[in-house]
């Protein structure tokens, strides 16, 4: 990495660099180990989300019609806005990593703060969406879900242009026998879509919240000037983590929001 690295061969008599942990021989070895560790961790994360993506794939294949329709109840505009916000936060994160490599502690910290601002904006938009879903009873709990009602609400959004919720009296509940077996099955399948939607987006949000905690600590050390061209692997690692969280969203957005977009008209 840098000319100041020393090869420390003999542990007994070595003059260690202040950032070098005792069990590593060189800064380069330490940096490589840290980075490889983060990559391995992200591999684990891929499989962690992978279970959910597998479940999504199976049910989307099985219940494709209902999944497409259910997808239309999510707000594409808000989803797209969030995608842009998250990509911007990745940009500021990349700039923070760059600044830490050149030893610019002040701007490392500034870019990290800006990354968190974008992250909070993302979660703000997301919680607005969740609030709306709760209102139109799209939460996939035991009693909360009312698919026919949500359908009527969507209908008003698309054709009426109004944002007020439909009159509940005109809508049959999902357990109404008049809907027949097909109606009830449809409602269960749609609930599966929303279950996956909430599991995936909340797991994603949880990763962002964990990220905030780590970024806060690293920002503190960045302002203190802890990072130098010799030692910046914490910043690079949180950068990798943040980009990973970003990429997960890049997959979630089309799978959840754009899935049924061609049915809008």
């Amino acid at each position, binding site marked *: 990495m840098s000319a100041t690295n020393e090869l420390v*061969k*003999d*542990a*007994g008599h070595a003059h260690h660099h202040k950032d070098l*942990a*005792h*069990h*590593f*021989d060189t800064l380069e*070895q330490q940096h*490589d*180990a840290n980075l*490889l*560790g983060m990559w*391995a*961790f992200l*591999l*684990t*994360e891929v*499989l*962690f*989300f*992978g*279970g*959910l993506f*597998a*479940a999504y794939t*199976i*049910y989307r294949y*099985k*219940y494709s019609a209902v999944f497409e329709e259910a997808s239309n109840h999510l707000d594409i505009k808000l989803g797209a806005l969030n995608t842009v916000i998250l990509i911007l936060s990745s940009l500021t994160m990349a700039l923070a990593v760059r600044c830490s490599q050149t030893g610019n502690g002040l701007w490392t910290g500034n870019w990290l703060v800006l990354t968190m601002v974008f992250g909070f904006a993302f979660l703000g938009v997301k919680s607005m969406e969740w609030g709306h879903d709760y209102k139109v009873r799209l939460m*996939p*709990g*035991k009693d909360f879900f009312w698919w026919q009602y949500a359908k009527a609400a969507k209908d008003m959004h698309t054709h009426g242009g109004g944002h007020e919720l439909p009159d509940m009296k005109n809508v049959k509940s999902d357990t109404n026998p008049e809907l027949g077996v097909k109606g009830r*099955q449809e409602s*269960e*399948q749609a*609930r*599966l879509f929303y*279950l*996956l939607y909430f*599991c995936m987006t909340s797991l994603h949000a949880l990763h962002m919240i964990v990220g905030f905690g780590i970024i806060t600590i690293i920002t503190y050390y960045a302002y203190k000037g802890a990072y130098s061209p010799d030692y910046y692997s914490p910043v690079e690692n949180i950068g990798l983590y943040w980009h990973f969280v970003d990429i997960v969203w890049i997959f979630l957005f089309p799978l959840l929001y754009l899935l049924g977009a061609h049915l809008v008209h």
Partner: protein
Amino acid sequence: MSTISLEPKTLVAENNQVVNESVNFLNHDHSVSSWLLSLDHKRIGILYLVTITLMFLLGGILAGVVRLELLTPKGDFVASDTYNKSFTAHGIIMLFFFLIPSIPAVLGNFVIPLMIGAKDVAFPRLNLLSYYLYLIGGVIALTALLLGGVDTGWTFYTPFSSTYSNSYVSVMAIGLFVVGFSSILTGLNFIITIHRMRCPGLTWFRLPLFIWALYATSVVQLLGTPVIAVTLGLMVVERTLGVGIFDPRLGGDPVLFQHLFWFYSHPAVYIMILPSLGVISEVIATFSRKNLFGYKIMAFSSVSIAVFGFIVWAHHMFTTGMSPYAAMVFSLLTFSVAIPSGIKVFSWLATMYNGSISYETPMIYAFGFLGLFTVGGLTGLFLATLGTDIHLHDTYFVVAHFHYIMVGGAIMGYMAGIHYWWPKITGKLYSQFWGRLSAGIIFIGFNLTFFPQFFLGYLGMPRRYHEYPDEFQVLNVFSTAGSSILAIGYIMPLFYFGHSFFFGEKADDNVYGATTIDWTSTTSPPSPHNFEKTPVVTEEPYHFRLKESAVVSH
């Protein structure tokens, strides 16, 4: 300090001048916090050793409950519900809290840095965190057991676990979720350690086979465990919210749960057995005093077992009504696991052929391993065959088969490893007489316990029932009698190891004349930072021929 001797020595320690007054990792600090908050991989290994031994005792007691109940055809010792909870707790504790952490977390932690010439693992803090995650997960799981237990079997099949079971499934799932992360972080730590911390000259093909085996194991831990975490998470969500992701009544698919579950839980079998295969390679090379036969193919066979482990999971599900074409592919792939396993067994035999074999305790355990692992592997082929699996599925044949692999294979390997590295860990010798005796008793007790179960299963006795028809009693009595012999065999080491630790003779730095650097370049017990000088490796790991080139074995 000691000089490093590469000359083979006999086990009889004459005069051990080496470690008398020297500072080592056991005696450099005696405070409680220096143990509980230690970042030293050796001390963390010992923390694991103590904890998993307690878990093993608990799991063993629960196995005793199961075997006592099955002594008589009627359900007269415990109620059916208690029986269900006993075998569930036995399975969960033995698998997640004993077998999975056994060799990697105890011996791997202790030995990996010593074998690759490093001062510690790559991330010592993460290593300590892994231990505490294991401990927290264990406490949560024990809480679930104390609250009233879980009756689903360790497999948590839906929709029983998610909808109908009235036991503490969610608490247990949270405990396993936490312990899963311990396993992931340990695997991650080892992978990075093996990649980045090797000493000068230690190329990949100079790594001891124990390191190759643990590397393969760690990859499985890293890739498999997150899937079970998310699967158990979804099951808990289904249970709490009453939604139907795995419930067919609500549009879900229970077979999806089984796919996701076995995607981890089949590779988990290789998390348990692969490290044992590594230990056995070390033991057999050392006590045959020969270069290991087919070193490279042995290394690759460990890796290929890990790879095959990920693409055979559906052989647990042949009776679920899955596509027959998929079943044929999974059956074929399952057969192919026999190839690397067979390579290993034959390589060990070829290593022993014309070797100068000495019958130390670890070697006796390794002999036991060879016999039991072979029986376990060959009976696996019965179950991989689509037709016979329909007959044998969910019978005692399956129980016997996987105990031959997990107890006969994994635990025999663990015992061999503990006996092999005990002088390195403690710097003390133990009684070879009692050691050999315990190995013999375990071998006899094990076969007496589990061999009759092959017949029971073939005759149609299903697993997980607490009653059975009268005609099965004779074989069940054999099995229960065997299990008490097995228990004696497992308890004996506690005594002679305890005696050795306090009163044992001092062990030489390299008591067996092994050739790997954990023996040749460190003291027994090792100093806190392992090596006085970073070792430089110039040879292959097993170079007995080079040292003893004068010995012609024909």
